């Protein structure tokens, strides 16, 4: 049994980690009992999570070493931004040329949010703050950008009659698409707004829970969590706006015609 001090330091040893696998066994038993047939999938997921987390832990331990240059952390942020744009362009493949738009969105979000967080001294600019904050900012924004890109395509495809009626009135493609881009951004942003509303009442977010487990005063943990939530909200708003308008611009020709948007097979 760990002592109270060890527990509060968040020090889970490998025996403790192995013990937590009991919960995986529970999931496996429930899957078998309910005949869900996902036991192998659970096993693969747990193995991948362990390998990936231990791997990233080793990389972070290297990057976050106080003796290393902060430039290494910035390089890590650049790599994260690059791969976020790659993932976005793959997952929303129906929008042509989305990679540079995704790149611009994540760079803009990084400039805005990290600029505020470090520029105003909310967190000290050091590796152990920069890397996890950038990771949370990018990770939470990625799903929202995929949602907004797909919604823009769906809106413009399903409301093609309305869009062409606007174009026929002499509206530019940007003006003709505006109501539908707004709707898509609203859809993508709403879950984050709802999450922000429900925090503390409906659930306790991870960063705050982690800090409390590590022995930080709950009030201090709450302040950190609030700052992080606002960072994520700002980031999601920035990325969805850039991707929403950017994706729409890719779906019109330079002479303001809506391109053909095929309905996915089976719908």
């Amino acid at each position, binding site marked *: 049994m760990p002592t109270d001090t060890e527990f509060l330091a968040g020090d889970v040893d490998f025996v403790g980690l192995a013990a937590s696998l009991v919960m995986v066994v529970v999931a496996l038993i429930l899957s078998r009992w309910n005949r869900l047939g996902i036991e192998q999938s659970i096993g693969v997921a747990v193995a991948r999570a362990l390998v990936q987390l231990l791997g990233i832990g080793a990389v972070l331990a290297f990057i976050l070493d106080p003796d290393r240059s902060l430039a290494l952390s910035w390089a890590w942020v650049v790599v994260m931004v690059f791969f976020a744009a790659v993932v976005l362009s793959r997952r929303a493949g129906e929008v042509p040329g989305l990679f540079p738009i995704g790149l611009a969105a994540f760079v803009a979000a990084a400039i805005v949010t990290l600029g505020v967080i470090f520029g105003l001294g909310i967190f000290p600019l050091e590796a152990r703050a920069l890397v996890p904050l950038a990771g949370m900012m990018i990770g939470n924004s990625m799903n929202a950008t995929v949602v907004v890109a797909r919604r823009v395509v769906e809106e413009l495809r399903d409301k093609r009659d309305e869009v062409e009626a606007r*174009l*026929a009135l002499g*509206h530019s493609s940007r003006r003709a698409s505006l109501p539908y881009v707004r709707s898509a951004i609203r859809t993508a942003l709403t879950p984050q707004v709802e999450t922000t509303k429900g925090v503390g009442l409906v659930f306790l977010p991870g960063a705050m829970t982690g800090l409390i487990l590590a022995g930080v005063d709950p009030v201090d943990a709450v302040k950190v969590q609030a700052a992080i939530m606002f960072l994520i909200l700002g980031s999601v708003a920035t990325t969805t706006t850039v991707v929403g308008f950017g994706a729409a611009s890719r779906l019109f020709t330079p*002479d303001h015609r809506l391109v053909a948007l095929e309905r996915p097979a089976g719908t």
Partner: protein
Amino acid sequence: MDQEPLFRFDAVTVEGSAGTRLREVTLDVPASGITTLVGPSGSGKSTLLRLCNRLEVPTRGRVSYRGRELSAFDPLELRRQVGMVFQRPVLFAGTVRDNLAEADGDADIRRLTDALERAALDGSFLDRPANELSGGEAQRVCLARTLIADPDVLVMDEPTSSLDGQAVSRLEQLGRRLADDGIPIVWVTHDLGQVGRIADRTAILMNGSLRFVGGRGELPADGDPALMRFLEGADAD
């Protein structure tokens, strides 16, 4: 034709993902009266119409408007000159006033009312919710919305196909009045009865090819079996 044509289609071909929609169409549309583009569903008549305001562009060939190639126009300016009315009345959320404002946000009450009256509606419609109008009223609001921009020409894509008998008759009368007031109209239809009532000139398309061009009351007396079947009403849509 002595007068410079309104639209000139010169060997126009349009290809799409589903195949060729127009093949080598050469046609002059006169700058007055009502020209009907007629043909069964899939004949390419709507594609030909959409070329007029650059909602489509030709794959090959050229389209000119009043002697100037369409690609030389600013597409946004061209679309305000070539007003379009679609097959299904498309109204935006809000009131009739909101819809008219989409065409010209600066239009004063006199212009709004004038546009409604040209479409056989009156000022009382301005504050009516757009989603509470009948099909015929909705199509006339769409016409009023197009007229707000003072277009030089109207292109209408089967504007009566979703309307009942009385609304059809009213829209045809409106079209005739606008044409007589100097706004030439290109009117797509598959209804040969309508052609007889409104057309000053008719072009018939079959499978993307132009098959006949004639004046008022003229229809081909003979031709290939598909064309004859269409004219006999067996393949109207």
